[in-house]
């Protein structure tokens, strides 16, 4: 399988604190992969390194063969990686549609002068941006919420707005940071369907961080387990579940328990 995302030897330090070290990670084209690990294992830090918010202290990150570590977040997004946030980061006082329109920014070009003069480029792009926002809200199933203020939407819908916003950037890889957090079991079931549709209908690869093991095992084809900033296991759901190091990381050693 071709690798879309290749991470090798990734390291991250904050002062004397080693958050990540020697991490290798690969996500294949068209794959649904998960990153799991106990609290504080460094999962979100991995996302922050991948998306350019943290500057890794070691290693390399390649997206479709191109080295992206050290690039600014907006450039990485343009190259095809989009993300959602663990704690929702919507533009709360703007409408759902305006939130999704943010995703189109990096795929459009009209500048301030186009806007002031009302050039054809500006008008065409505006129409296309609005249409795309509607389309992506429709894809995640909340088209009717388009004109509502994002901050007032029900929590589950806010999560979907974040998805639509990320998908609107036309990513080749979508990073989902705990997409199931705060959802009830019915919403989680829909989430599994949505993840599969993103991959099957859009051809977008997915890497997700998740705490709900049921959800992880159900949806992911490949799982990487992180503990204290290091990879301790990887493989299919079955392989990971039976790995003694994983059990130890989550439950502690037998001696400690006794």
């Amino acid at each position, binding site marked *: 399988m071709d690798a879309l995302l290749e991470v090798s030897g990734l390291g991250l330090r*904050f002062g004397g604190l080693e958050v990540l070290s020697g991490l290798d990670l690969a996500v294949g084209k068209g794959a649904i992969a998960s990153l799991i690990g106990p609290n504080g294992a460094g999962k979100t830090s991995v996302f*922050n390194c991948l998306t350019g918010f943290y500057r890794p202290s070691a290693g390399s990150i390649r997206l479709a063969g191109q080295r992206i570590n050290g690039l600014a977040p907006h450039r990485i997004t343009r190259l095809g990686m989009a993300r959602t946030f663990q704690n929702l980061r919507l533009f709360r006082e703007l409408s759902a549609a305006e939130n999704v329109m943010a995703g189109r920014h990096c795929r459009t070009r009209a500048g301030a002068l186009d806007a002031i003069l009302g050039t054809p480029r500006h008008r065409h792009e505006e129409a296309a941006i609005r249409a795309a926002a509607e389309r992506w809200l429709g894809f995640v199933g909340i088209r009717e919420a388009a004109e509502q203020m994002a901050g007032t939407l029900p929590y589950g819908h806010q999560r979907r707005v974040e998805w639509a916003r990320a998908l609107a950037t036309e990513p080749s890889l979508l990073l989902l940071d705990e997409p199931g957090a705060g959802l009830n079991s019915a919403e989680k079931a829909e989430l599994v369907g949505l993840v599969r549709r993103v991959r099957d209908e859009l051809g977008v690869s997915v890497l997700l961080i998740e705490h709900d093991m049921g959800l992880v095992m159900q949806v992911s084809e490949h799982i990487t387990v992180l503990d204290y900033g290091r990879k301790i296991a990887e493989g299919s759901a079955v392989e990971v579940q039976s790995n003694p190091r994983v059990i130890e990381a989550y439950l502690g050693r037998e001696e400690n328990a006794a």
Partner: protein
Amino acid sequence: MPLYEVLLQQFANGLILGSFYALVALGYSMVYGVIKLLNFAHGDLYMTGAFAGFGALSLFSGWLGGGWGGIVPAILFSMVAVGALGVIIDRVAYRPLRQAPKLSVLITALAVSMLLENVALAFTGGQYTAFTTNLGFAGVDLGMVHVTYTQMVLVGASVVLMVVLELFVSGTMHGKAMRAIAIDQDACRLMGIDVDRTIALTFLIGSALAAAAGVLAGVYYGSINFFMGFLIGLKAFTAAVIGGIGSIPGAMLGGILLGLLEAFGTQIPGVGSEWKDVFVFAFLILFLVFRPTGLLGRPEVERM
């Protein structure tokens, strides 16, 4: 005058100027350190302090005289009055906005600054007020350089105030509470620290120090006006940034350095005194861009 005497004279001037900057910078830095508020009104508290001290001295000098016997009580009065004013400002203007967006709080601070300045303007009609004392010019001569006792006392008083403050913040429970609030207000509330009271205390101390500096500046320059807080507010902020905002020794160091820089800067050929403020602001911008944590500030780890 030989060169070394020029330099010595400028060194003395810079030290005095710097100790004013440092006193004002301390309050700036403390408030910023604790609640991350850029208190634009801080320079105006310095101005208000000068007027409060002037008023007190006018009253006291009748029976205490216009020397240190009258000035010291005037300083203490001004510190208490302006300290209280600082607490009131925090209570009325800033506390209701603790959870508001930063832009709103900054604009509010600006409004408070405008208010203080224009109240003083209304009272004085924009005139300079002569701050008369009878301290005289007795002092020590070092070659051609004359340093008055007054100047020495000014620097000494500043240093004493700063040392007391540092001991307070590093050694008492109140100081510990301040430092804790700077890190995490919510956690402090959970631990039973009275956050609002501690913040009020911060304003009290910061404002009192600015008031002391204001009175000392009145004594030193011999005149005060409603606008005197504007520029020193800016420069004190610059000093706080140079030293590392939030750090007490940093504010002292930054203030003294800025005072010296200004004093020596005017001696550079081609840089007249009319350019010295441009010099100071350029320095501020350079520091903010290249070393935003200042000389003594700890680097912040950028986290999301």
